[in-house]
């Protein structure tokens, strides 16, 4: 029987890679760490990451000359200049350490085979001599939007291998993991977070966990797109909605939602970018490789936002393949050969066989761009501290740290989970070791009472109308049709109004089952209003942002506008408000000035101030917000040549 109140030093919500790596850092520093997870941690969605983890080791021939600075430049260009460049730099510098640490934890990274190797590059079969002196080092595959081959990988099960290795460290350190537990609200006094109210998904019992530091590591919010997502069924965006519910902590860039070019149609299951990295083609109904004309330089390996738009345009132009489940395009990896497909892309081979009944060595794969990644999330500073609330942190996809800006590069999320887990975990440990547990039990019991009351009220509600599941499906339809890849003002206005209607409807929705125990319908009804609020925040952010940047594309404002929109959206939800309040902050100090990404459109509205003026304003804003203390100024980290260039 779970007691009503338990305590720990560091509480991590979410047992995926970011949360577990963070907990390891805290535990290694002597803090008692506890992880709450919806599922046994090895079933977290990190395990579904397939193709790779970006880190500039530069070990194979096509990676020669790579280094963290080149990785940083690719990441900023990928973000369409929406990223916080200081964070992108910290990330790129730490990523090689994170990959090597995973090797130390046991990940069987694919290695360089010295001597002749056959690759497919830009449609051609190429033979490359890998250096014998690099034999046995971690090798790389190509991914979208990168200047060098940089993705380290273990077949197409990179996330699985990484998660198992990191979880084995969690077991080794004896970190407590409470699986099948869902956090349902934060315990806080308006200034400091003291833990969470949680609900056990085995018994339905609610309890309080009090901690010195609380870390949100709950992943993305893809499931607000209903079934139109590659995400697991558990990607509710729980952590983001807990933070939003405080009324104090803002969410950043919620409108920045990534669509992955190649999800299996119609199931939405991810087919890794590694397929195109290893030489796969996209084809339309005439078998044309339309990406060659659309992006002569990068072809299939432009960034995901760019490739997804070209694919949707191709379908809208009538060149998609008709099927009973809507139109799709082809991913063709037949030429890579069965041996490659059953080793380096084994998981793709299995998915094609199990879910489409095809053999990708002989058949083309039906694919369609599908919601995949949440660039937005709990807005945190460089240390992972949530804006506005002490003792609260966020890390990984749940956070807006913000190294991805408006478009994440493939392989950068896996790398972010480990890098941020290390960096933020160290800060969490430092904070927790200097803090004392505020065992203000009345605060906890008040929050617990409120949570109990909410569940009881839900169960007591009577009436007719649609079920929470039907309202969820309606939300998915609104999001995919009006807040998808191509957006416009009229659709977004209509989406905002429809989501408000769904919020209203949901507040009256009645449960079909009111019995004791876990009650899966009650569990969903408790979390779904939060998902609706996130969806409204996404739609309103998208409506307000009258430009196109990265994955946020407005057909009525097709240009990136660095004059007015070189900023980050912040969304607060005031208590009892019916909608979020939007405000904006600069993206951060700029090292690489805005320019052409090297793919996609080269047209944009230029800044009307110098980078120096912009950066001065950033420093002023950060100082007035009091958030710079622990971070060294970016200028000191820039190489001399770059400082002069800016």
């Amino acid at each position, binding site marked *: 029987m779970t007691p009503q109140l338990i305590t720990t030093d560091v509480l991590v919500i979410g047992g995926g890679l970011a949360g577990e790596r963070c907990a390891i850092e805290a535990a290694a520093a002597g803090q008692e760490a506890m992880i709450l997870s919806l*599922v*046994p941690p*090895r*079933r977290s*969605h990190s*395990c579904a990451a397939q193709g790779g983890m970006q880190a500039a080791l530069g070990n194979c021939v096509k990676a020669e000359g790579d280094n963290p600075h080149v990785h940083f430049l690719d990441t900023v260009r990928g973000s369409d200049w929406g990223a916080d460049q200081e964070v992108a730099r910290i990330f790129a510098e730490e990523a090689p350490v994170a*990959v*090597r*640490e995973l*090797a*130390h*934890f*046991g990940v*069987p*990274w*694919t*290695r*360089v085979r010295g001597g002749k190797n056959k690759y497919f590059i830009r449609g051609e079969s190429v033979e490359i001599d890998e250096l014998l002196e690099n*034999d*046995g*080092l971690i*090798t790389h595959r190509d991914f979208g939007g990168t200047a060098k081959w940089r993705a380290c990988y*273990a*077949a197409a*099960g990179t996330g*699985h*291998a990484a998660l198992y*290795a990191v979880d*084995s*460290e969690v*077991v*080794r350190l004896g970190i407590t*993991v409470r*699986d*099948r537990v869902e956090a349902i609200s934060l315990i806080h006094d308006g200034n400091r977070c003291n833990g969470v109210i949680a609900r056990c998904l*085995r018994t*339905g019992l609610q309890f309080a966990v009090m901690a010195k530091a609380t870390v949100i590591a709950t992943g993305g919010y893809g499931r607000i797109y209903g079934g139109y997502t590659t995400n*697991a*069924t558990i990607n509710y965006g729980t952590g983001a909605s807990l933070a939003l519910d405080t009324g104090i902590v803002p969410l950043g860039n919620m409108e920045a939602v990534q669509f992955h070019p190649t999800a299996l149609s*119609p*199931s939405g299951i*991810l087919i890794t970018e590694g397929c195109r990295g290893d030489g796969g083609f996209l084809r339309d109904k005439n078998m044309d490789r339309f990406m060659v004309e659309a992006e002569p330089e990068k072809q299939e390996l432009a960034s995901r936002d760019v490739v997804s738009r070209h694919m949707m345009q191709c379908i809208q132009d009538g060149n998609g393949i008709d099927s*009973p489940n809507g139109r799709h395009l082809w991913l063709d990896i037949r030429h890579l050969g069965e041996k490659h497909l059953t*080793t380096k892309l084994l998981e793709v081979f*299995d*998915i094609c066989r*199990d*879910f489409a*009944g095809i053999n990708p060595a002989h058949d083309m794969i039906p694919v369609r761009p599908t919601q995949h990644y949440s660039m937005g999330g709990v807005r945190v500073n460089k240390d992972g501290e949530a804006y506005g609330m002490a003792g609260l942190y966020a890390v990984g996809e749940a956070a807006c740290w913000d190294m991805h800006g408006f478009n994440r590069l493939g392989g950068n999320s896996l790398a972010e989970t480990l890098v941020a887990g290390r960096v933020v975990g160290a800060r969490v440990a430092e904070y927790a070791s200097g803090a004392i547990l505020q065992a203000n039990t009345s605060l906890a019991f008040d929050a617990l009472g409120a949570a109990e009351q909410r569940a009881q009220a839900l169960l007591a509600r009577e009436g007719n109308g649609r*079920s929470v599941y*039907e309202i969820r499906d309606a939300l998915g339809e609104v999001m995919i049709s009006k807040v998808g890849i191509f957006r416009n003002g009229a659709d977004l206005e209509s989406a905002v109004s429809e989501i408000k209607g769904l919020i209203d409807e949901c507040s009256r929705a009645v*449960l*079909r*089952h009111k*019995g*004791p*125990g*876990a009650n*899966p*319908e009650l569990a969903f009804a408790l979390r779904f209003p939060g998902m609706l609020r996130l969806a409204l925040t996404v739609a309103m952010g998208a409506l307000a942002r009258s430009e196109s940047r990265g994955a946020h594309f407005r057909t009525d404002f097709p240009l990136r506008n660095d004059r007015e929109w070189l900023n980050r959206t912040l969304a607060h939800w005031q208590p009892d408000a019916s909608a979020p309040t939007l405000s904006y902050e600069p993206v951060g100090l700029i090292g690489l000035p805005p320019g052409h990404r090297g793919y996609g459109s080269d047209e944009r509205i230029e800044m009307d101030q110098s980078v120096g003026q912009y950066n001065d304003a950033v420093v002023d804003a950060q100082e007035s917000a009091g958030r710079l203390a622990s971070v060294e100024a970016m200028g000191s980290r820039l190489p001399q040549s770059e400082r002069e260039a800016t």
Partner: protein
Amino acid sequence: MSREAFETVRRLRFEIFRFNPEDPESKPHIDTFEIDERPYMTLYMALNEIRETQDSSLQFDFACRSAICGSCGMMVNGRPALGCRTLTVDLSETVHLHPLPAFKLIGDLSVDTGTWFRQMAERTEAWIHEQLPFDKDAPEERMSDDLADAIYEGDRCIECGCCVASCGVANVNPDFLAAAGLNRVARFMIDPRDGRDDSEWYDVVKGPDGVFACGGMMACADVCPKALPLLEVYAYLRRRALGMKFLSD
């Protein structure tokens, strides 16, 4: 029946084991549900449709719905399988669903695999027993790509529990490591980064719950959704165990 041909829509009949241990009124029984089959329907789709339209108390587990996370092991017509990748077209019109045996029941089709696997990992110390602490400034240790492939092969287990549920020994001896546990042991044994020597492996592999407790029927190899080479794993461990014996004599 071919996967394409759906001239007449089948009416599927699901006979599902029901029991909610949290409800004092609940007694183990079978409930029957009927739904229309749809093209490419999986048990993931079918069970969600039943829960959302007929009985919202029905408990089952899915997460990735792409045969990667291992959440949805269940007995499908008496055989352990992943619900997410089981196509209804491959099943008879009446489908019998039970929870996996050998694990603690949470409710209906949901079982507690998480606790089982955590305990197994603790007992076998399923982590790299490092020889030196991590040096963040050093390049990675080299490894041949063939060896990396071999370790990855053992690492592919998704801990769904199908092998445990299918195992005659695991169902009567809850301490038996079963295929999932022994595969995990073998994975660390072949990894040169793990510093354990044969004497440290001795009890794990040769003890009463180790490889020689296996009854040899190898249902595990038949049901493994990832087609792990479990016959080879058991053979490898037996050979290694004998090697240990000779060494210790």
